[in-house]
């Protein structure tokens, strides 16, 4: 009997130890880089000789980094708008009971998520070269819309799976035109799904580097593209400063996603009642 009781406790301690070490492995690199961005000296070691904001100043004073930041924001915003619009429409179509060939259509619509990004990048580079879309923000927006849209399709489809289509029938029996019913009944219900899809699309574009490596010239460099050069050529603590800002950004993003999901779950429960 003692054995039966003590063994699980030992098991539990071991599990916490193993799990804790793995969590440490996951979090430590991200946490370790943050203080180094405040290092007064350009070294990557602890203990740091002093604190300074010089690497942040360098980031905000550098034309190259500022251009990269601006390009990233422009491209991500337009790619998000476009992929959210197209993706939401497609997801509504896919969730209609009448949708034909659903499996095939879904496979095509989410294929940009499955195809290895290097294959997409080379293909898009090859095709965009032929139509003059290389070295343009438009080209980047189009490419990022393609790889961001599947995230919208998946999140909105998942939200629509629990949507009660009787609501639409009720709306139309009360005289609402299909467009009106969609905008006033369906859209508010699926809004959290649309919003999280949009966030996914934004982050996908904001973090995308392989396609940017292929189709963006030096004037269209994005933030990840600039970081890639930074890590490859001269690794300066400016990278650590940019990384810290991006970690802050992803923390905000994660918090928003969690909030949206919790809201969607609450809504689901409310509907069931």
């Amino acid at each position, binding site marked *: 009997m003692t054995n039966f009781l003590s063994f*699980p406790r030992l*098991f539990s301690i071991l*599990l916490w130890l193993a*799990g804790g070490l*793995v*969590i440490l492995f*996951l*979090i430590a*690199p*991200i946490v*370790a*880089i943050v203080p180094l961005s405040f290092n007064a000296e350009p*070294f*990557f*070691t*602890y203990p740091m000789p002093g604190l300074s904001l010089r690497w942040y100043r360098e980031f905000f004073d550098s034309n190259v980094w500022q251009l990269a930041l601006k390009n990233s924001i422009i491209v991500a915003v337009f790619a998000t708008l476009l992929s959210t619009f197209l*993706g939401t*429409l497609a997801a*509504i*179509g896919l969730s209609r009971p*009448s*949708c*034909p060939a659903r*499996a095939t*259509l879904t496979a095509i*619509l*989410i*294929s*940009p998520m*499955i*195809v*290895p*990004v*290097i*294959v*997409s990048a*080379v*293909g*898009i580079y*090859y095709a965009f070269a032929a139509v003059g879309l290389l070295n343009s923000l438009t080209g980047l927006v189009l490419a990022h*819309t*393609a790889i961001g*849209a599947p995230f919208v399709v*998946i*999140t909105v489809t998942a939200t629509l799976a629990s949507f009660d289509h009787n609501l639409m029938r009720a709306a139309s029996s009360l005289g609402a035109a299909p467009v009106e019913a969609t905008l006033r009944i369906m859209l508010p219900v699926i809004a959290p799904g649309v919003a999280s899809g949009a966030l996914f699309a934004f982050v996908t574009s904001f973090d995308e*580097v*392989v396609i940017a490596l*292929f189709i963006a010239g030096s004037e269209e460099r994005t933030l*990840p593209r600039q*970081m890639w050069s*930074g*890590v*490859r050529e001269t*690794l300066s603590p400016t990278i650590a400063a940019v*990384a810290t800002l991006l*970690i802050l950004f*992803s*923390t905000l*993003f*994660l918090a928003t996603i969690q909030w949206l999901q919790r809201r969607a779950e609450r809504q689901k429960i409310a509907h069931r009642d």
Partner: protein
Amino acid sequence: MVIATMNDGDEARIADRTRVKRLGSAKSKAQLRALLLIAPLLIFLLLVFVLPIAVLLTRAVDNRAASAALPYTLSALSAWDEESAPDEALFAAFATDLKQSPRDQIAEVAKRLNYYETGMRSMLLKTARTIRNAKPPYNAAFVAIDPKWETPHYWTLIKNASPPFTDYYLLASLDLERDASGAIGRVSAENAVHVDVLIRTFVVSASVIVICLFLGYPLAALIARSKGAVANALLILVLLPFWTSLLVRTSAWVVLLQGRGVINSALIWLGLVDPAHPLDLIYNRIGVLIAMTHILLPFMVLPIYSVMKSIPPVYLRAASSLGAPPMSAFLRIYLPMSMPGVSAGGLLVFILAFGYYITPALVGGPGDQMVSYFIAYYSNQVTNWGMAAALSTILLVAVLILYAVYNRIVGIDRLRIG
């Protein structure tokens, strides 16, 4: 009576048919409406994504460069027996092509021929430059530029390059080639690099799966066992790296693993490592495995966790109440029940690892580059679209097969993000 019944039946049948027709048209109208909603994204993706990749992949078998640049030569060559000395008609046709065709087309053919035999490129380009001013008889003019034009071997090479489609690149990406008789054989050892790259890609991906499994399984079990706020906090600690930029995480590892980086300086400070010889943790296989495991681990933890969460704890309690020791309860109940999560996570990690480019390129050495690196190399640095397309085809086919397995085992609709 009989007639009336028949009439009734007819009417009923006609009414049925119209009802079916009306239903059918309503159904097809509803189908059309669904399709109209899907159409904008579908057309967009076909134009911006599917078509570009399809066009790229055709480059793997595309061989029209020669037929576009050397039409007269190729028709003259079709009558040639590949053994007798080239005659004046052949030389004249070749001269006409070299004078007429645009330089970039000739350069394309020259590059193409150079894959067959090193040196053909400069030979052909030099000939093309000089022959423009030559007058017949061309035989003497060609031989004056390069005596090799007398040898049938070089004309055979040009003739071999003439069909519109070729399996050359696809074979080459598997380190195979056709000899003069058309039989498929292995390429010489110094040119055989691609199979090694494919094996390496496979080995790295498989190693990452194994490490992810060993690290991810206990973590998933811990989260699944925890309750409420603790489980939530653990989950967020897994999700935060998941949503942190790939380049942030890769740069963090570069900073940590460098010779003068955080880990080495800590080890030196602790006196565990000689300051003159810091550990080689980066630009080698160790660095690739650490960084890729870090990036792909959440993809392993999350599916295993979601399966574990659905295993009722009463099963384990039942097993121990029936006398099973904890180890055997785990091995015979918990492990088999968590296997769907393991296979889902493993396949997902495999699919993602197989196509990785950025992380090995930044933290790996020359011996750690995977197939993606070579696709980038062939398309960016040496502009050999045929090879880039052939390797892309292999990578894509491998991922699609893995994905089909994933779909069979896990189901595409189980694909969840976040």
